[in-house]
Protein backbone atom coordinates (compact mmCIF):
# COMPACT_ATOMS: atom_id res chain seq x y z
CA UNK A 1 0.00 0.00 0.00
CA UNK A 2 1.76 3.18 -1.14
CA UNK A 3 2.17 6.08 1.23
CA UNK A 4 -0.25 8.93 0.72
CA UNK A 5 1.46 11.61 -1.34
CA UNK A 6 2.15 14.96 0.33
CA UNK A 7 -0.10 17.75 -0.89
CA UNK A 8 1.43 20.75 -2.62
CA UNK A 9 -0.28 24.12 -3.05
CA UNK A 10 0.91 27.07 -5.13
CA UNK A 11 -0.48 30.47 -4.15
CA UNK A 12 -0.39 33.84 -5.84
CA UNK A 13 -0.50 37.31 -4.33
CA UNK A 14 0.58 40.45 -6.24
CA UNK A 15 3.07 39.30 -8.85
CA UNK A 16 3.70 38.78 -12.55
CA UNK A 17 3.26 34.97 -12.34
CA UNK A 18 6.81 34.42 -13.56
CA UNK A 19 7.73 32.31 -10.56
CA UNK A 20 4.76 30.01 -11.15
CA UNK A 21 5.73 29.82 -14.82
CA UNK A 22 9.21 28.75 -13.83
CA UNK A 23 7.55 25.79 -12.09
CA UNK A 24 5.70 24.92 -15.29
CA UNK A 25 9.00 25.17 -17.19
CA UNK A 26 10.46 22.35 -15.10
CA UNK A 27 9.76 19.97 -18.02
CA UNK A 28 10.85 16.44 -17.05
CA UNK A 29 11.10 17.38 -13.43
CA UNK A 30 7.50 18.61 -13.49
CA UNK A 31 6.43 15.05 -14.28
CA UNK A 32 8.63 13.85 -11.43
CA UNK A 33 7.12 16.50 -9.16
CA UNK A 34 3.61 15.34 -10.04
CA UNK A 35 4.64 11.78 -9.20
CA UNK A 36 6.09 12.74 -5.83
CA UNK A 37 3.43 15.13 -4.58
CA UNK A 38 -0.28 15.63 -5.03
CA UNK A 39 -0.53 18.97 -6.81
CA UNK A 40 -3.61 19.89 -4.82
CA UNK A 41 -3.96 23.60 -5.50
CA UNK A 42 -2.26 25.36 -8.40
CA UNK A 43 -4.86 27.48 -10.23
CA UNK A 44 -2.36 28.66 -12.84
CA UNK A 45 -1.84 25.03 -13.92
CA UNK A 46 -5.10 23.23 -13.18
CA UNK A 47 -8.80 23.83 -12.50
CA UNK A 48 -8.78 21.00 -9.97
CA UNK A 49 -8.70 22.40 -6.45
CA UNK A 50 -8.41 20.01 -3.54
CA UNK A 51 -9.17 21.33 -0.08
CA UNK A 52 -6.42 21.89 2.49
CA UNK A 53 -4.53 21.51 4.68
CA UNK A 54 -1.41 21.31 2.50
CA UNK A 55 1.97 19.82 3.35
CA UNK A 56 3.94 22.31 1.27
CA UNK A 57 2.81 25.74 0.12
CA UNK A 58 4.79 27.72 -2.42
CA UNK A 59 3.76 31.34 -2.16
CA UNK A 60 4.35 33.82 -4.95
CA UNK A 61 3.67 37.55 -4.79
CA UNK A 62 3.58 40.36 -2.28
CA UNK A 63 0.90 41.54 0.10
CA UNK A 64 -0.45 44.68 -1.55
CA UNK A 65 -4.28 44.56 -1.44
CA UNK A 66 -6.56 44.84 1.60
CA UNK A 67 -7.96 41.31 1.07
CA UNK A 68 -4.41 39.92 1.11
CA UNK A 69 -4.14 40.64 4.84
CA UNK A 70 -6.77 37.97 5.55
CA UNK A 71 -5.73 35.66 2.74
CA UNK A 72 -2.10 35.38 3.85
CA UNK A 73 -3.25 34.35 7.33
CA UNK A 74 -5.50 31.70 5.80
CA UNK A 75 -2.65 30.34 3.63
CA UNK A 76 -0.44 30.09 6.68
CA UNK A 77 -3.14 28.23 8.66
CA UNK A 78 -3.59 25.76 5.80
CA UNK A 79 0.14 25.08 5.29
CA UNK A 80 2.49 22.82 7.18
CA UNK A 81 5.59 24.21 5.38
CA UNK A 82 5.33 27.66 3.80
CA UNK A 83 7.95 28.61 1.24
CA UNK A 84 7.91 32.21 0.01
CA UNK A 85 9.45 32.24 -3.45
CA UNK A 86 10.46 35.05 -5.71
CA UNK A 87 11.29 38.71 -5.33
CA UNK A 88 7.72 39.84 -4.60
CA UNK A 89 7.07 37.25 -1.90
CA UNK A 90 10.43 37.80 -0.20
CA UNK A 91 10.69 41.59 -0.44
CA UNK A 92 7.67 43.26 -2.02
CA UNK A 93 8.72 43.23 -5.66
CA UNK A 94 8.87 46.04 -8.19
CA UNK A 95 5.41 47.11 -7.00
CA UNK A 96 7.12 48.08 -3.73
CA UNK A 97 8.34 51.20 -5.56
CA UNK A 98 5.07 52.64 -4.20
CA UNK A 99 6.57 52.37 -0.71
CA UNK A 100 8.78 55.35 -1.55
CA UNK A 101 5.91 57.63 -2.46
CA UNK A 102 2.16 58.11 -2.07
CA UNK A 103 0.45 55.32 -3.97
CA UNK A 104 -2.63 57.51 -4.26
CA UNK A 105 -0.70 59.84 -6.59
CA UNK A 106 -0.18 56.97 -9.01
CA UNK A 107 -3.80 55.88 -8.80
CA UNK A 108 -5.06 59.39 -9.50
CA UNK A 109 -2.66 59.73 -12.44
CA UNK A 110 -3.51 56.41 -14.06
CA UNK A 111 -7.16 55.69 -13.32
CA UNK A 112 -10.22 57.71 -14.06
CA UNK A 113 -11.89 56.59 -10.83
CA UNK A 114 -9.03 55.93 -8.38
CA UNK A 115 -11.49 55.24 -5.56
CA UNK A 116 -12.18 51.89 -7.28
CA UNK A 117 -8.54 50.87 -6.75
CA UNK A 118 -8.31 49.78 -3.14
CA UNK A 119 -4.63 49.10 -2.58
CA UNK A 120 -2.51 49.09 0.55
CA UNK A 121 -0.10 51.97 0.96
CA UNK A 122 2.84 49.57 0.85
CA UNK A 123 3.71 46.32 -0.93
CA UNK A 124 5.33 43.98 1.59
CA UNK A 125 6.87 40.50 1.77
CA UNK A 126 4.96 37.48 3.10
CA UNK A 127 7.31 37.26 6.08
CA UNK A 128 6.12 40.64 7.31
CA UNK A 129 2.70 39.12 7.97
CA UNK A 130 3.15 35.46 8.87
CA UNK A 131 6.04 33.17 9.84
CA UNK A 132 7.75 31.78 6.74
CA UNK A 133 9.71 28.52 6.79
CA UNK A 134 11.97 29.22 3.82
CA UNK A 135 12.56 32.14 1.48
CA UNK A 136 13.86 31.60 -2.05
CA UNK A 137 15.05 34.91 -3.49
CA UNK A 138 15.17 35.73 -7.18
CA UNK A 139 13.13 37.09 -10.06
CA UNK A 140 12.36 34.28 -10.55
CA UNK A 141 14.31 31.95 -8.27
CA UNK A 142 16.37 29.41 -10.15
CA UNK A 143 14.12 26.43 -10.85
CA UNK A 144 16.80 24.11 -9.51
CA UNK A 145 16.50 25.86 -6.17
CA UNK A 146 12.73 25.38 -6.12
CA UNK A 147 13.09 21.67 -6.88
CA UNK A 148 15.81 21.35 -4.24
CA UNK A 149 13.59 23.07 -1.69
CA UNK A 150 10.68 20.71 -2.36
CA UNK A 151 13.03 17.69 -2.35
CA UNK A 152 14.41 18.91 0.98
CA UNK A 153 10.88 19.07 2.42
CA UNK A 154 10.02 15.60 1.14
CA UNK A 155 13.15 13.84 2.35
CA UNK A 156 14.33 15.87 5.31
CA UNK A 157 17.44 17.19 3.58
CA UNK A 158 18.82 20.64 4.38
CA UNK A 159 17.20 23.32 2.19
CA UNK A 160 19.29 25.01 -0.50
CA UNK A 161 20.97 28.24 0.53
CA UNK A 162 23.10 30.60 -1.52
CA UNK A 163 23.47 33.68 0.67
CA UNK A 164 26.90 34.71 -0.72
CA UNK A 165 27.62 36.94 -3.72
CA UNK A 166 26.87 36.41 -7.41
CA UNK A 167 30.63 36.88 -7.94
CA UNK A 168 31.29 33.38 -6.63
CA UNK A 169 29.09 31.83 -9.32
CA UNK A 170 30.46 34.24 -11.90
CA UNK A 171 34.09 33.31 -11.21
CA UNK A 172 33.29 29.59 -11.04
CA UNK A 173 31.69 29.88 -14.47
CA UNK A 174 34.86 31.53 -15.76
CA UNK A 175 33.18 34.78 -16.76
CA UNK A 176 35.49 37.80 -16.90
CA UNK A 177 34.36 40.51 -14.47
CA UNK A 178 32.29 43.13 -16.33
CA UNK A 179 32.74 45.65 -13.53
CA UNK A 180 36.55 45.51 -13.48
CA UNK A 181 37.23 44.88 -17.18
CA UNK A 182 34.41 46.92 -18.75
CA UNK A 183 33.56 49.47 -16.09
CA UNK A 184 29.89 48.41 -15.95
CA UNK A 185 27.98 49.13 -12.71
CA UNK A 186 27.44 45.50 -11.72
CA UNK A 187 25.55 44.77 -8.49
CA UNK A 188 26.95 41.22 -8.33
CA UNK A 189 29.23 41.91 -5.34
CA UNK A 190 26.26 42.84 -3.12
CA UNK A 191 23.68 40.49 -4.65
CA UNK A 192 22.79 36.99 -3.58
CA UNK A 193 23.88 34.11 -5.80
CA UNK A 194 21.48 31.57 -7.28
CA UNK A 195 20.99 32.77 -10.85
CA UNK A 196 24.25 31.25 -12.09
CA UNK A 197 25.60 34.71 -12.99
CA UNK A 198 23.23 34.91 -15.94
CA UNK A 199 23.70 38.59 -16.86
CA UNK A 200 27.49 38.95 -16.39
CA UNK A 201 27.80 35.82 -18.56
CA UNK A 202 26.21 37.88 -21.35
CA UNK A 203 28.43 40.93 -20.70
CA UNK A 204 25.59 42.66 -18.85
CA UNK A 205 25.94 44.02 -15.32
CA UNK A 206 23.97 42.32 -12.55
CA UNK A 207 20.73 44.18 -11.75
CA UNK A 208 20.39 42.69 -8.29
CA UNK A 209 17.25 40.67 -9.04
CA UNK A 210 18.19 38.05 -6.42
CA UNK A 211 18.30 40.69 -3.71
CA UNK A 212 20.93 41.61 -1.13
CA UNK A 213 23.48 38.97 -0.18
CA UNK A 214 24.51 38.38 3.42
CA UNK A 215 26.45 41.32 4.94
CA UNK A 216 26.01 43.49 1.81
CA UNK A 217 28.37 46.49 1.81
CA UNK A 218 26.30 48.58 -0.57
CA UNK A 219 27.83 51.90 0.53
CA UNK A 220 31.31 50.87 -0.60
CA UNK A 221 30.09 49.67 -4.00
CA UNK A 222 27.99 52.84 -4.49
CA UNK A 223 31.04 54.97 -3.64
CA UNK A 224 33.07 53.13 -6.30
CA UNK A 225 30.30 53.57 -8.89
CA UNK A 226 30.21 57.30 -8.15
CA UNK A 227 33.91 58.04 -7.81
CA UNK A 228 35.38 55.65 -10.38
CA UNK A 229 32.60 54.94 -12.85
CA UNK A 230 31.13 58.43 -12.77
CA UNK A 231 27.63 57.41 -11.68
CA UNK A 232 25.28 60.27 -10.75
CA UNK A 233 23.31 60.20 -7.49
CA UNK A 234 20.03 59.69 -9.37
CA UNK A 235 21.56 56.68 -11.13
CA UNK A 236 22.58 55.21 -7.78
CA UNK A 237 19.01 55.63 -6.51
CA UNK A 238 17.73 53.72 -9.53
CA UNK A 239 20.42 51.03 -9.31
CA UNK A 240 19.38 50.00 -5.83
CA UNK A 241 15.66 50.81 -6.24
CA UNK A 242 14.64 48.11 -8.66
CA UNK A 243 13.78 44.45 -8.04
CA UNK A 244 14.66 44.50 -4.36
CA UNK A 245 13.84 48.16 -3.69
CA UNK A 246 12.13 47.29 -0.41
CA UNK A 247 14.86 45.00 1.01
CA UNK A 248 16.37 46.91 3.93
CA UNK A 249 19.97 47.03 2.60
CA UNK A 250 19.00 48.22 -0.88
CA UNK A 251 16.30 50.52 0.47
CA UNK A 252 18.71 52.35 2.79
CA UNK A 253 21.30 52.65 0.02
CA UNK A 254 18.86 54.14 -2.49
CA UNK A 255 17.56 56.59 0.13
CA UNK A 256 21.11 57.68 0.93
CA UNK A 257 21.47 59.01 -2.62
CA UNK A 258 18.18 60.86 -2.84
CA UNK A 259 18.19 64.63 -3.12
CA UNK A 260 16.97 66.15 0.13
CA UNK A 261 13.43 67.50 -0.34
CA UNK A 262 13.36 71.17 -1.27
CA UNK A 263 12.15 73.43 1.54
CA UNK A 264 8.64 74.86 1.12
Amino acid sequence: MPRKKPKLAVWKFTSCDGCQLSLLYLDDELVELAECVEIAYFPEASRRRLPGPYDISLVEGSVSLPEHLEEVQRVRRLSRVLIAFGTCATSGGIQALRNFTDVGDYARLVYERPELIPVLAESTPISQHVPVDLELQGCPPHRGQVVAAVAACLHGAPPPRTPASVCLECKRAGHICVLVSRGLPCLGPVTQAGCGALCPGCHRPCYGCFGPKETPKTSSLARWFRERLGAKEAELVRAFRLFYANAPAFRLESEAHEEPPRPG
Partner: protein
Amino acid sequence: MRGRSPALTLTLEGLQALLAELRRQGYSLLGPSLVQGDFGHREIRGVADLPRGVGMEQEAGTFRLVFREDAELFGYPVGQPSWKPVFFPPSRLVWQAVRSAGGWEISLPREDLPPVALLGVRPCDLAAMEVLDRVFLRGPYVERSYQARREAAFIVAVNCTRPGGTCFCASLGTGPRAREGFDLALTEMVTGEGHWFLVETGSDAGRALLETVPHRQATAAEVEAASRALAAAAGRMGRHLEMVGLKEHLYENYEHRHWAEVAGRCLTCGNCAMVCPTCFCHHLEDSLNLRGDRASRRRVQDVCFTVAHSYIHGGSVRPTPWSRYRQWLTHKLATWQEQFGCLGCVGCGRCITWCPVGIDLTAEVAALRRGETPPAKRE
Protein backbone atom coordinates in the same frame (compact mmCIF):
# COMPACT_ATOMS: atom_id res chain seq x y z
CA MET B 1 64.73 15.10 -13.94
CA ARG B 2 64.27 18.82 -13.62
CA GLY B 3 67.11 21.29 -13.95
CA ARG B 4 68.52 23.89 -16.24
CA SER B 5 70.27 23.22 -19.54
CA PRO B 6 72.10 25.69 -21.74
CA ALA B 7 69.71 28.07 -23.43
CA LEU B 8 68.46 27.43 -26.94
CA THR B 9 66.84 29.61 -29.53
CA LEU B 10 63.57 28.93 -31.26
CA THR B 11 62.04 30.86 -34.15
CA LEU B 12 58.33 31.64 -34.43
CA GLU B 13 58.05 28.74 -36.89
CA GLY B 14 59.86 26.57 -34.36
CA LEU B 15 57.28 27.47 -31.72
CA GLN B 16 54.48 26.60 -34.13
CA ALA B 17 56.13 23.22 -34.82
CA LEU B 18 56.45 22.63 -31.08
CA LEU B 19 52.77 23.32 -30.44
CA ALA B 20 51.79 21.09 -33.35
CA GLU B 21 53.95 18.29 -31.95
CA LEU B 22 52.29 18.60 -28.53
CA ARG B 23 48.90 18.22 -30.16
CA ARG B 24 50.14 15.33 -32.28
CA GLN B 25 51.20 13.60 -29.07
CA GLY B 26 47.63 13.80 -27.81
CA TYR B 27 47.87 16.80 -25.55
CA SER B 28 44.93 19.11 -25.29
CA LEU B 29 46.65 22.48 -25.75
CA LEU B 30 45.43 25.32 -23.52
CA GLY B 31 46.72 28.80 -24.15
CA PRO B 32 45.91 32.49 -24.05
CA SER B 33 43.01 33.54 -26.20
CA LEU B 34 40.71 36.46 -26.76
CA VAL B 35 37.01 35.81 -27.28
CA GLN B 36 34.51 38.69 -27.47
CA GLY B 37 36.99 40.94 -25.69
CA ASP B 38 37.54 38.51 -22.81
CA PHE B 39 41.10 37.32 -22.21
CA GLY B 40 41.32 33.75 -20.90
CA HIS B 41 42.85 30.32 -21.32
CA ARG B 42 41.12 28.17 -23.90
CA GLU B 43 41.90 25.28 -26.18
CA ILE B 44 44.06 26.54 -29.05
CA ARG B 45 45.43 24.91 -32.18
CA GLY B 46 48.63 26.86 -32.60
CA VAL B 47 50.38 30.21 -32.90
CA ALA B 48 47.68 31.59 -35.19
CA ASP B 49 45.15 31.42 -32.35
CA LEU B 50 47.28 33.53 -30.01
CA PRO B 51 46.33 37.18 -29.55
CA ARG B 52 48.99 39.44 -31.07
CA GLY B 53 50.12 42.83 -29.81
CA VAL B 54 47.78 42.66 -26.82
CA GLY B 55 48.64 44.50 -23.64
CA MET B 56 46.96 44.95 -20.28
CA GLU B 57 46.51 48.08 -18.22
CA GLN B 58 45.90 47.11 -14.64
CA GLU B 59 45.24 49.16 -11.55
CA ALA B 60 43.41 48.45 -8.31
CA GLY B 61 39.87 47.53 -9.37
CA THR B 62 40.52 48.21 -13.07
CA PHE B 63 41.58 46.11 -16.03
CA ARG B 64 41.68 47.16 -19.67
CA LEU B 65 43.07 45.39 -22.70
CA VAL B 66 45.14 47.58 -24.99
CA PHE B 67 45.98 46.78 -28.56
CA ARG B 68 49.46 47.64 -29.77
CA GLU B 69 50.99 47.54 -33.22
CA ASP B 70 53.74 45.07 -32.34
CA ALA B 71 53.83 41.32 -33.03
CA GLU B 72 54.39 40.13 -29.46
CA LEU B 73 52.35 37.08 -28.53
CA PHE B 74 52.99 37.31 -24.78
CA GLY B 75 53.43 41.05 -24.25
CA TYR B 76 51.30 41.28 -21.09
CA PRO B 77 51.38 39.88 -17.55
CA VAL B 78 48.35 37.89 -16.24
CA GLY B 79 44.62 38.21 -16.81
CA GLN B 80 41.78 37.24 -14.48
CA PRO B 81 41.93 33.44 -14.87
CA SER B 82 44.84 31.59 -13.34
CA TRP B 83 45.55 27.95 -14.22
CA LYS B 84 44.04 26.81 -10.93
CA PRO B 85 40.77 25.60 -12.52
CA VAL B 86 42.73 23.12 -14.69
CA PHE B 87 43.89 21.23 -11.61
CA PHE B 88 41.24 22.28 -9.12
CA PRO B 89 37.95 22.53 -11.05
CA PRO B 90 35.50 25.01 -9.50
CA SER B 91 32.83 22.33 -9.32
CA ARG B 92 33.69 18.65 -9.31
CA LEU B 93 31.48 15.60 -8.80
CA VAL B 94 32.86 13.62 -5.87
CA TRP B 95 30.38 10.75 -5.87
CA GLN B 96 26.86 9.87 -6.81
CA ALA B 97 24.47 7.36 -5.37
CA VAL B 98 21.40 5.52 -6.57
CA ARG B 99 18.88 3.92 -4.25
CA SER B 100 17.84 0.40 -5.17
CA ALA B 101 16.02 -2.39 -3.39
CA GLY B 102 19.23 -3.41 -1.69
CA GLY B 103 20.08 0.05 -0.42
CA TRP B 104 22.27 2.84 -1.73
CA GLU B 105 24.75 2.14 -4.48
CA ILE B 106 27.56 4.66 -4.46
CA SER B 107 29.77 5.26 -7.47
CA LEU B 108 32.76 7.45 -8.14
CA PRO B 109 32.96 9.43 -11.38
CA ARG B 110 35.34 8.21 -14.05
CA GLU B 111 37.91 10.84 -14.82
CA ASP B 112 39.69 9.89 -18.03
CA LEU B 113 40.98 13.31 -18.86
CA PRO B 114 43.24 13.86 -21.85
CA PRO B 115 46.65 15.17 -20.76
CA VAL B 116 46.83 18.95 -21.04
CA ALA B 117 49.67 21.12 -22.24
CA LEU B 118 49.61 24.63 -20.83
CA LEU B 119 51.12 27.41 -22.92
CA GLY B 120 52.00 30.76 -21.42
CA VAL B 121 52.22 29.92 -17.72
CA ARG B 122 53.79 32.92 -16.01
CA PRO B 123 56.43 32.55 -13.27
CA CYS B 124 53.98 33.70 -10.56
CA ASP B 125 51.48 31.06 -11.68
CA LEU B 126 54.20 28.40 -11.71
CA ALA B 127 54.99 29.41 -8.13
CA ALA B 128 51.28 29.07 -7.35
CA MET B 129 51.26 25.51 -8.68
CA GLU B 130 54.14 24.71 -6.35
CA VAL B 131 52.08 26.15 -3.46
CA LEU B 132 49.04 24.06 -4.37
CA ASP B 133 51.28 20.98 -4.69
CA ARG B 134 52.27 21.47 -1.05
CA VAL B 135 48.62 21.73 -0.08
CA PHE B 136 47.24 18.82 -2.09
CA LEU B 137 50.18 16.46 -2.59
CA ARG B 138 52.71 16.87 0.20
CA GLY B 139 50.56 16.69 3.31
CA PRO B 140 49.47 13.52 5.08
CA TYR B 141 46.62 13.11 2.56
CA VAL B 142 46.98 13.27 -1.20
CA GLU B 143 44.20 14.77 -3.31
CA ARG B 144 43.98 12.14 -6.06
CA SER B 145 42.03 14.10 -8.65
CA TYR B 146 44.45 17.03 -8.32
CA GLN B 147 47.39 14.65 -8.57
CA ALA B 148 46.07 12.99 -11.72
CA ARG B 149 45.50 16.32 -13.45
CA ARG B 150 48.80 17.78 -12.30
CA GLU B 151 50.99 14.85 -13.29
CA ALA B 152 49.48 14.67 -16.76
CA ALA B 153 50.24 18.33 -17.52
CA PHE B 154 53.04 19.56 -19.78
CA ILE B 155 54.03 23.11 -18.95
CA VAL B 156 55.40 25.72 -21.31
CA ALA B 157 56.19 28.73 -19.16
CA VAL B 158 56.70 32.23 -20.51
CA ASN B 159 58.84 34.73 -18.62
CA CYS B 160 57.48 38.24 -18.17
CA THR B 161 59.07 41.14 -20.00
CA ARG B 162 56.05 43.42 -19.56
CA PRO B 163 54.89 43.34 -15.93
CA GLY B 164 51.62 45.00 -15.01
CA GLY B 165 50.49 47.79 -12.75
CA THR B 166 49.51 45.45 -9.93
CA CYS B 167 52.40 42.95 -10.27
CA PHE B 168 54.82 42.42 -7.37
CA CYS B 169 56.45 39.03 -8.02
CA ALA B 170 59.89 40.66 -7.81
CA SER B 171 59.18 41.43 -4.12
CA LEU B 172 58.55 37.75 -3.41
CA GLY B 173 61.21 36.23 -5.67
CA THR B 174 58.63 34.36 -7.73
CA GLY B 175 59.33 36.20 -11.03
CA PRO B 176 59.64 37.71 -13.57
CA ARG B 177 61.86 34.76 -14.56
CA ALA B 178 60.71 31.18 -14.01
CA ARG B 179 63.25 29.14 -12.07
CA GLU B 180 61.66 25.71 -11.84
CA GLY B 181 58.47 23.76 -12.26
CA PHE B 182 58.31 23.93 -16.05
CA ASP B 183 59.06 21.58 -18.91
CA LEU B 184 60.03 24.46 -21.17
CA ALA B 185 60.38 28.15 -20.39
CA LEU B 186 60.35 30.80 -23.10
CA THR B 187 61.47 34.39 -23.13
CA GLU B 188 59.86 36.14 -26.07
CA MET B 189 62.07 38.63 -27.90
CA VAL B 190 61.21 40.95 -30.75
CA THR B 191 64.50 42.56 -31.82
CA GLY B 192 66.38 43.70 -34.92
CA GLU B 193 67.11 40.02 -35.49
CA GLY B 194 63.39 39.28 -35.73
CA HIS B 195 60.87 37.48 -33.54
CA TRP B 196 62.49 34.69 -31.51
CA PHE B 197 62.33 32.84 -28.23
CA LEU B 198 65.06 31.96 -25.79
CA VAL B 199 64.19 28.50 -24.48
CA GLU B 200 65.24 26.83 -21.26
CA THR B 201 64.42 23.20 -20.67
CA GLY B 202 63.35 22.14 -17.20
CA SER B 203 62.65 18.44 -17.63
CA ASP B 204 63.50 15.40 -19.71
CA ALA B 205 60.06 15.63 -21.31
CA GLY B 206 60.83 19.21 -22.30
CA ARG B 207 64.22 18.26 -23.74
CA ALA B 208 62.71 15.37 -25.67
CA LEU B 209 60.00 17.54 -27.15
CA LEU B 210 62.47 20.20 -28.19
CA GLU B 211 64.52 17.57 -30.04
CA THR B 212 61.60 17.05 -32.41
CA VAL B 213 61.56 20.65 -33.67
CA PRO B 214 64.18 22.89 -35.34
CA HIS B 215 66.23 24.89 -32.83
CA ARG B 216 69.82 25.96 -32.19
CA GLN B 217 72.17 26.91 -29.37
CA ALA B 218 71.62 30.47 -28.21
CA THR B 219 74.45 32.92 -28.76
CA ALA B 220 75.95 34.75 -25.81
CA ALA B 221 74.40 37.95 -27.16
CA GLU B 222 70.94 36.39 -27.25
CA VAL B 223 71.23 35.12 -23.68
CA GLU B 224 72.43 38.54 -22.61
CA ALA B 225 69.57 40.34 -24.39
CA ALA B 226 66.93 38.13 -22.73
CA SER B 227 68.53 38.57 -19.32
CA ARG B 228 68.56 42.34 -19.76
CA ALA B 229 64.87 42.34 -20.71
CA LEU B 230 63.96 40.32 -17.62
CA ALA B 231 66.12 42.44 -15.32
CA ALA B 232 64.42 45.53 -16.68
CA ALA B 233 61.03 43.90 -16.09
CA ALA B 234 61.93 43.23 -12.44
CA GLY B 235 62.48 46.97 -12.07
CA ARG B 236 59.09 47.88 -13.58
CA MET B 237 56.76 46.13 -11.13
CA GLY B 238 53.68 48.25 -10.43
CA ARG B 239 53.56 47.19 -6.79
CA HIS B 240 55.96 46.29 -4.00
CA LEU B 241 55.46 44.21 -0.88
CA GLU B 242 57.94 44.42 1.99
CA MET B 243 58.09 41.00 3.62
CA VAL B 244 60.78 41.57 6.28
CA GLY B 245 59.22 41.12 9.73
CA LEU B 246 55.71 41.12 8.27
CA LYS B 247 54.56 37.85 9.82
CA GLU B 248 55.46 38.95 13.34
CA HIS B 249 53.94 42.36 12.77
CA LEU B 250 50.63 40.84 11.65
CA TYR B 251 50.55 38.50 14.66
CA GLU B 252 51.12 41.46 16.98
CA ASN B 253 48.43 43.59 15.40
CA TYR B 254 45.23 41.59 15.31
CA GLU B 255 43.41 44.63 16.68
CA HIS B 256 45.06 47.21 14.41
CA ARG B 257 42.60 50.01 13.63
CA HIS B 258 43.28 49.58 9.92
CA TRP B 259 41.34 46.29 9.82
CA ALA B 260 38.15 48.25 10.55
CA GLU B 261 39.10 50.81 7.90
CA VAL B 262 39.38 48.07 5.25
CA ALA B 263 36.05 46.65 6.42
CA GLY B 264 34.48 50.00 5.47
CA ARG B 265 35.37 49.16 1.87
CA CYS B 266 35.44 45.35 1.74
CA LEU B 267 32.34 43.91 0.06
CA THR B 268 33.08 40.37 1.34
CA CYS B 269 32.17 39.33 -2.21
CA GLY B 270 35.09 36.89 -2.32
CA ASN B 271 36.53 37.95 -5.68
CA CYS B 272 40.08 38.23 -4.30
CA ALA B 273 40.05 34.62 -3.14
CA MET B 274 38.28 33.34 -6.26
CA VAL B 275 40.92 34.79 -8.60
CA CYS B 276 43.85 33.96 -6.29
CA PRO B 277 45.92 31.17 -7.86
CA THR B 278 46.58 29.56 -4.46
CA CYS B 279 43.28 29.90 -2.56
CA PHE B 280 41.92 26.37 -2.34
CA CYS B 281 38.88 26.65 -0.07
CA HIS B 282 35.82 24.69 -1.04
CA HIS B 283 32.65 23.25 0.40
CA LEU B 284 30.74 20.07 -0.29
CA GLU B 285 27.31 20.43 -1.81
CA ASP B 286 24.85 17.57 -1.58
CA SER B 287 21.82 17.26 -3.77
CA LEU B 288 18.89 14.91 -3.91
CA ASN B 289 16.27 14.46 -6.60
CA LEU B 290 12.53 14.74 -5.94
CA ARG B 291 11.98 10.99 -5.82
CA GLY B 292 14.72 10.72 -3.23
CA ASP B 293 16.48 7.92 -5.08
CA ARG B 294 19.44 9.78 -6.59
CA ALA B 295 21.95 11.75 -4.61
CA SER B 296 25.21 13.41 -5.47
CA ARG B 297 27.95 15.31 -3.76
CA ARG B 298 29.99 18.01 -5.45
CA ARG B 299 33.09 19.81 -4.31
CA VAL B 300 32.53 23.49 -5.02
CA GLN B 301 35.13 26.24 -4.88
CA ASP B 302 34.39 28.56 -1.97
CA VAL B 303 35.98 31.47 -0.14
CA CYS B 304 36.64 32.43 3.48
CA PHE B 305 34.56 35.60 2.98
CA THR B 306 31.19 33.90 3.42
CA VAL B 307 29.49 33.65 6.79
CA ALA B 308 28.96 29.92 6.28
CA HIS B 309 32.67 29.27 5.77
CA SER B 310 33.44 29.71 9.45
CA TYR B 311 30.12 28.34 10.70
CA ILE B 312 30.48 25.85 13.49
CA HIS B 313 27.84 24.66 15.91
CA GLY B 314 25.98 27.71 17.18
CA GLY B 315 27.16 30.29 14.71
CA SER B 316 29.93 31.77 12.59
CA VAL B 317 33.35 32.29 14.12
CA ARG B 318 33.93 35.30 11.86
CA PRO B 319 30.61 37.14 11.70
CA THR B 320 32.09 40.55 10.90
CA PRO B 321 33.55 41.58 7.54
CA TRP B 322 36.72 42.88 9.15
CA SER B 323 37.41 39.56 10.84
CA ARG B 324 36.97 37.83 7.49
CA TYR B 325 39.33 40.16 5.63
CA ARG B 326 41.85 39.82 8.45
CA GLN B 327 41.59 36.03 8.22
CA TRP B 328 42.24 36.06 4.49
CA LEU B 329 45.19 38.46 4.49
CA THR B 330 46.81 36.97 7.58
CA HIS B 331 46.46 33.49 6.14
CA LYS B 332 48.02 34.46 2.82
CA LEU B 333 51.00 36.27 4.30
CA ALA B 334 51.59 34.78 7.74
CA THR B 335 49.79 31.67 9.01
CA TRP B 336 50.21 29.96 5.61
CA GLN B 337 53.92 29.82 6.45
CA GLU B 338 53.25 27.83 9.63
CA GLN B 339 50.82 25.60 7.77
CA PHE B 340 52.64 24.87 4.51
CA GLY B 341 56.16 26.30 4.90
CA CYS B 342 55.70 28.94 2.21
CA LEU B 343 53.72 32.09 1.50
CA GLY B 344 50.15 31.82 0.24
CA CYS B 345 50.88 34.78 -2.03
CA VAL B 346 52.91 34.72 -5.27
CA GLY B 347 52.71 38.41 -6.21
CA CYS B 348 50.48 38.02 -9.29
CA GLY B 349 48.38 41.04 -8.25
CA ARG B 350 45.04 39.49 -9.27
CA CYS B 351 43.42 40.22 -5.90
CA ILE B 352 44.27 43.89 -6.41
CA THR B 353 43.12 44.20 -10.02
CA TRP B 354 39.94 42.17 -9.64
CA CYS B 355 38.68 43.60 -6.33
CA PRO B 356 35.52 45.44 -7.46
CA VAL B 357 36.42 48.35 -5.16
CA GLY B 358 40.18 48.27 -5.61
CA ILE B 359 41.30 47.04 -2.19
CA ASP B 360 45.07 46.71 -2.57
CA LEU B 361 46.84 44.03 -0.54
CA THR B 362 50.18 45.84 -0.82
CA ALA B 363 48.68 49.17 0.27
CA GLU B 364 46.74 47.56 3.13
CA VAL B 365 49.92 45.87 4.37
CA ALA B 366 51.77 49.18 4.18
CA ALA B 367 48.99 50.80 6.23
CA LEU B 368 49.02 47.94 8.74
CA ARG B 369 52.77 48.39 9.14
CA ARG B 370 52.25 51.99 10.21
CA GLY B 371 51.70 52.34 13.95
CA GLU B 372 50.23 50.10 16.68
CA THR B 373 52.05 47.07 18.21
CA PRO B 374 51.70 48.67 21.66
CA PRO B 375 51.55 46.74 24.98
CA ALA B 376 55.29 46.82 25.66
CA LYS B 377 56.20 45.72 22.13
CA ARG B 378 54.32 42.40 22.74
CA GLU B 379 57.75 40.84 23.26
